[in-house]
């Protein structure tokens, strides 16, 4: 059941383009979307979720054009938007019942399904409280539960780990891994380590364009052998930044430890080669685009 995005362009107005001639094919597994703010990640997700129509191009799910026939994907879609809200006067149970109705899920097993999902996101004890009194993390967990209500085959998570505490983030990663065998999962995050842990494939975007899409080792290989660390005096940093792509700095007594990528394979003096990471590759690709 591949999801094919073909030459999709989304223009908001004459001067602002969300996506520009964007094409990508997504298969079962987890695709992590990485990109700076305004790269078009949320726009792409909204188009797949059928709540935004592309200006040009088409999106096919299993050969069916879902721009023209959105209900085809809606039946099997689980969507967690970036800044979703809730009805504060409903409790968790009533809210999930409502979302189930939206998704066309009913029958005798619905109550048990909701109970189990609430249990799974650790909200059983709070299920009878109005959601308006929930913390940010609890609301996020309700969001995750609603996305799973209809046994989705396409799951879209836009910044899903925002508001989750470290333990909840670990559990969320585990959940995604469990689901990945059977679903297409598209996940965006600013936290590169989340994508690094969860995603099978990574798509890097900037200015509405796809810079690269590959499995993680292939993406990382683009900067392999070009990542170094060195110690600098504080005064040297500005000059250093003009020559190299600085990934990270940290204070070490009187010195500053700098992690950097060479632009033309010429490393600075007294540097040590280090293993490249997805974050290095992401910053390298987006900086050079």
């Amino acid at each position, binding site marked *: 059941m591949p999801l094919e995005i073909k030459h999709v362009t989304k223009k908001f107005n004459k001067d602002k383009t969300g996506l520009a001639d964007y094409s990508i094919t997504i298969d079962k597994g987890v695709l992590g979307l990485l990109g700076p703010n305004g790269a078009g990640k949320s726009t792409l997700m*909204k188009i797949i*979720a*059928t*709540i*935004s*129509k592309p200006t040009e191009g088409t999106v096919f799910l299993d050969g069916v054009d879902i721009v023209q026939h*959105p*209900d085809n994907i*809606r*039946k099997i*879609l689980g*969507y967690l*938007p970036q*800044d*979703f*809200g*809730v*009805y*504060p*006067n*409903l409790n968790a149970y*009533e809210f999930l*019942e*409502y*979302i*189930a*109705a*939206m*998704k*066309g*899920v*009913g*029958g*005798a*097993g*619905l109550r*048990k*399904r909701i109970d*189990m*999902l609430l*249990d*799974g*996101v*650790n909200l*059983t*004890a*709070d299920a009878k*409280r109005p959601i308006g*009194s929930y913390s940010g993390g609890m609301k996020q967990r309700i969001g995750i*539960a609603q996305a*799973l209500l*209809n*046994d989705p085959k396409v799951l879209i998570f836009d910044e899903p780990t925002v508001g989750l505490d470290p*333990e*909840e983030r670990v*559990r969320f990663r*585990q*959940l995604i891994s*469990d689901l990945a065998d*059977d679903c297409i999962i598209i996940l965006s995050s600013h936290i590169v380590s989340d994508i690094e842990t969860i995603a099978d494939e990574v798509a890097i975007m900037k200015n509405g364009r796809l810079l690269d899409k590959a499995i993680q080792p292939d993406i990382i290989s683009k900067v392999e052998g070009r990542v170094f660390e060195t110690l600098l005096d504080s005064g040297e940093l500005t000059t250093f930044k003009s020559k190299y792509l600085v990934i990270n700095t940290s204070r070490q007594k009187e010195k500053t430890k700098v992690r950097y990528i060479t632009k033309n394979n010429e490393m600075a003096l007294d540097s040590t080669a280090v293993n490249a990471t997805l974050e290095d590759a992401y910053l390298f690709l987006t900086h050079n685009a």
Partner: protein
Amino acid sequence: MRYIYSIVKADYLQRTRSYAFLITLAITVYAAYSFVPPPTASYTTLNIVGYKGVYNSAWVGHVSAMMTTIMLSLYGFFLINGGIKKDIDTEVGLIVATTKISNFGYLLSKFFSNFLVLLTIMGCTFAVSIVMFFVRTTGYPFIISDFVVPYLLFAIPALLLVSALSVVAEVFLGKRSILQYILFFMFFGTMLANVTNLKNDNTAIIADAFGVRTMTSSIRNKVNTQYHENVAAINLGFTFNSHKKAFRTFVWNGVNWTGFFLFSRFLWICIAFALVYFSSFFFHRFDVKQRFGKKKKALIKDHMQDVKITAPVGVSMAALPPVVADYGIYPFIKTELLLLIRQGSKWFWLITAGVWVAMLFAPFNISYGYLLPVIWFLQVTRWSELVTKEKFNRLHYFTYSSYKPLQRMLPAQMFAGILLALALALPVIVRSIVTLSFYPVINIINGAIFVVALAACIGIVSGGKKLFEIIYFLLSYCVVEALPPADYLGAIPKENPLAYVFTMLLLNTFLILTSFTVRSYQARHL
């Protein structure tokens, strides 16, 4: 003062850059046009039992200033109310609270931005009134001061007062918007009663917040002197001449402004500023949870003590019961009704229940013509949130991406609203059926559909609830005042009741079709 200017500017721009404001402006321009009716029109905006002033500069300028003052004071409150609430909802208030701006400084900036919004609308009616003078008048000279002075002396102090009252209402009554509306309406009614009060002593002049009684007294004296009449009643607002009798005309050259009158206007301006200053001592400074949420917080704490902390278990999709498809709309209707019932304060249902019981025992005409529009108006925030709440609560991502949202979601919302409206109208419906009067039943059903369809249409098109609240308030006010064109309930006897039923049906169909068409576009263009 520089930061006050910046806040006022930002607040003003934020409020005026909306469809709701533009539509309000368009309606106001139309209203200003209707303030100066053509000589053949069957209505007048200032009626002295069959008399009407000739359209000279003084008459057009004063009447349009008076109408603007009264109408804008009335619906302006609804338009500007909610500025502080917006800062609470968007959490901008939390940032404001951490800055060095004083409570008075913040409230003063809200007061000024309220006033600027109203002033913008007033500016439009002022311009239209001048245009209307040249459209309607022949043979009388144009005197600019006949327009400028009444607007300055009637409208400006009144609008300052309304702007201050909006701030006071928000400070003391927080999010209880219905209560704010009711109290303001009571204040407005009292002021309007004072305008038509026959006494003309200094106390009455001081007590007139709108300042227009000086004008009505002057006009009454003119008619009584010229035609040797003893006219007492002057009707302000749109009065329909149902007998098609021609108006007798007289020439009125404006008000002789006295020093005491000018002092009274200055006093009301001072009162407006004093109200803002006084309320600054009680302003919550966005510590709203502490003020309004104590009880809830305590409940949560008690509840949490009973909760046994469980270890996270994770979700096993394979263990979940199989999904059973159900594409009906019954669960939506159930939840929409639940949301309608839970919306607002529980105590407010007591008032609704009181009016509902009164509808059972009051004379039928009172129940039908007065209590029914009132009980429906009491639900104004329920109707206005019917189709706007998902966007306000940022739930529209879910609803628009759900299965057939247009065929299931929107009908369920409208159906739930109509069910509630009919449940509230039940006493009048039952009494009509008992007396075998079926037109009222049909008209009430049509009226229920109309209220819900109007709320849906305006909410969807404008993207907010404010515009509907203003229009519905004016509509309800006109219905209670028994103005025939506003009679969406069919409470005023009709020459051709069947034609009226079909007209309402057509109107409802148009509103519903517009709602669906626009929502259909919105659902795919987030």
